[in-house]
């Protein structure tokens, strides 16, 4: 499990996924190490969401092996079931249960904890609500009464309800205004530090990549083309990667963070 002293909490080998004859991933290898924030990037339709769904067992791959905490995701059994407590998933639009209030949504995973008092559960849900930066009264609202950004925050709060060790985030900042997106980045960074979270972050947002990701994995040509730090990405000699990390937007984002670091 351990490579250069770091523990791989997610290990994907030789993954192949396909829909009918449309192959999305082939021979895909990926490691995610404990405590890091991994940014997964790639063009639209390269299968970032499908990869996330496959690792969390929502999608059955055609071939390959996936281990999370050393447990085979594709196998059954009690070990596999215990994984559900150890990871949290935030879907692209929050995927909140529309018939429940935000607070009830967050309480859903907590109800599986034996012996947890209802009033404590309620207070913990309120705490999660404000930890993700939602106003207190948001707890009583239904998902349809929230804005897109608030729904994402509520989705994150639900994903974090049981303090999982890994969170999977699918484009958390897409559709947020720049200030909201930056606040979300800070939130994720903060939570990952204080809770020791490992974060699997699918994103299109260059600012997010620069601001919070420890490592980046580029999805291209049906596999993980390269992984490495931002500086590594600038060296990569691949047309898509060059375009992506040397484009004007990338330069702007990079300049911003460089300036931040000097401050």
């Amino acid at each position: 499990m351990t490579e250069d002293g770091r523990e791989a909490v997610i290990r994907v080998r030789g993954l192949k996924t396909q829909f009918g004859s449309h192959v999305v991933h082939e021979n895909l290898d990926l490691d995610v190490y404990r405590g890091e924030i991994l940014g997964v990037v790639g063009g639209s339709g390269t299968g970032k969401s499908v990869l996330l769904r496959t690792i969390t067992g929502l999608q059955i791959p055609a071939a390959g092996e996936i281990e999370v905490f050393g447990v085979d995701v594709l196998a059954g059994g009690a070990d596999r079931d215990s994984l559900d407590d150890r990871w949290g998933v935030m879907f692209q639009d929050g995927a909140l249960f529309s018939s429940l209030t935000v607070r009830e949504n967050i309480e859903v995973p907590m109800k599986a904890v034996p012996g947890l008092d209802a009033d404590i559960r309620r207070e913990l849900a309120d705490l999660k609500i404000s930890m993700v930066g939602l106003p207190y009264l948001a707890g009583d609202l239904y998902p349809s009464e929230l804005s897109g950004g608030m729904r994402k925050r509520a989705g994150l709060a639900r994903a974090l309800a049981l303090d999982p060790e890994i969170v999977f985030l699918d484009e958390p900042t897409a559709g947020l205004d720049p200030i909201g997106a930056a606040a979300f980045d800070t939130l994720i960074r903060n939570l990952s530090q204080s809770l020791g979270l490992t974060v699997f972050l699918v994103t299109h947002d260059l600012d997010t990549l620069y601001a919070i990701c420890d490592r980046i994995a580029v999805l291209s040509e049906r596999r993980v083309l390269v992984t490495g730090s931002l500086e590594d990405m600038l060296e990569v000699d691949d047309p898509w990667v060059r375009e992506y990390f040397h484009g004007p937007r990338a330069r702007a984002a990079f300049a911003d963070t460089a300036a931040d670091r000097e401050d």
Partner: protein
Amino acid sequence: MAAREERIELGLSETDAGAALSLSGVLSIRTVSELRHRLAALNLDRPLVVDLAGVARIDTAGAWLLVDLETRAQSAGGSLDLRNVRDTTALLLDNVRQARPEPENRPEAARGVRALLERIGRAVVGALRYFADLTGFFGLFLARLARVLRHPSQFRLTALVAHCEDVGLRAVPIVSLMAFLIGVVLAFQGAEQLRQFGAEVFVVDLIAISVLRELGILLTAIIVAGRTASAFTAAIGSMKMREEIDAMRTLGLDPGVMLFVPRILALLLMLPILGIIADFMGIFGGALMAWLELGISPSMFVTRLIEGTGVGHLVVGLVKAPAFALIIGVVGCHAGMQVKGNAESLGRMTSGSVVAAIFAVILADALFSVFFAKVGI
């Protein structure tokens, strides 16, 4: 499943200055309830030292418990001193301290008789408001209808025809079958009873009057309410849900003219026709049964029908049709406009509109009966 067997141990020693608490084990969402119960009796109005040296892991719930203890100690005049706090734990505690939701004063929920009275009051006000809303909606429909009459170019004839097909033509089989069976049942039951008095021939009056006056149009309206009110609510509600109605407004299209007028007008045109079909089929079913069961030949049936039953009964029945049509259309469209942004409320509104439409139709029928009885028709 080691993760599920988390334990927390707690050692409490009283000192002259206050109390010292040492925790060991895992302070997590699985142990937080237990720990809180065990700490419930603790005196908080003195200095308290909590040693976390033995704690292997703290999660947000654990941090919340400590911060909660801290706040309560402070407000009780004591203090809380955390010892052997790891860096990550300190960060977590800070996060939780910052995030502690403002204690908000929620309105006390009423209990007992007061709660019951409150619920009844709310229900009554809700019902009145709903009725006022429906009246308002009816007014809106009339206003839009008037606008369409003044500017016929705005009228959507294609939509009207399409809705007529949906509301009327497609309902013909089910309405006919229903009315036919009602006629059969009436003849059969009536024959049983009337035969005892040798008054079989009055079965014709029985069938004709009950079908023409009441059952034909009432049951048709109930079936149409079930089919059409729900369809209207679902169609308009899903447009509302996807903000299509807002989009229409921004494009200068009036939802009243575009959506409500064609639908309600289609009902107004079709329900009387369906009622006539139901009347005819009901009497046909009754005649068939009277012939087979009582030996009343079709020609005898027709003669008796013309002699014994006035056209008045048919008119009394059909007069109700436009009223029922308006009720069904207004209730269905209004419910569609009440749909909020989620699928849940669409489902609730759809089933709600059927119930409300059927109830309103029956209520209106009862009012009509009273009215006709008083007027003496």
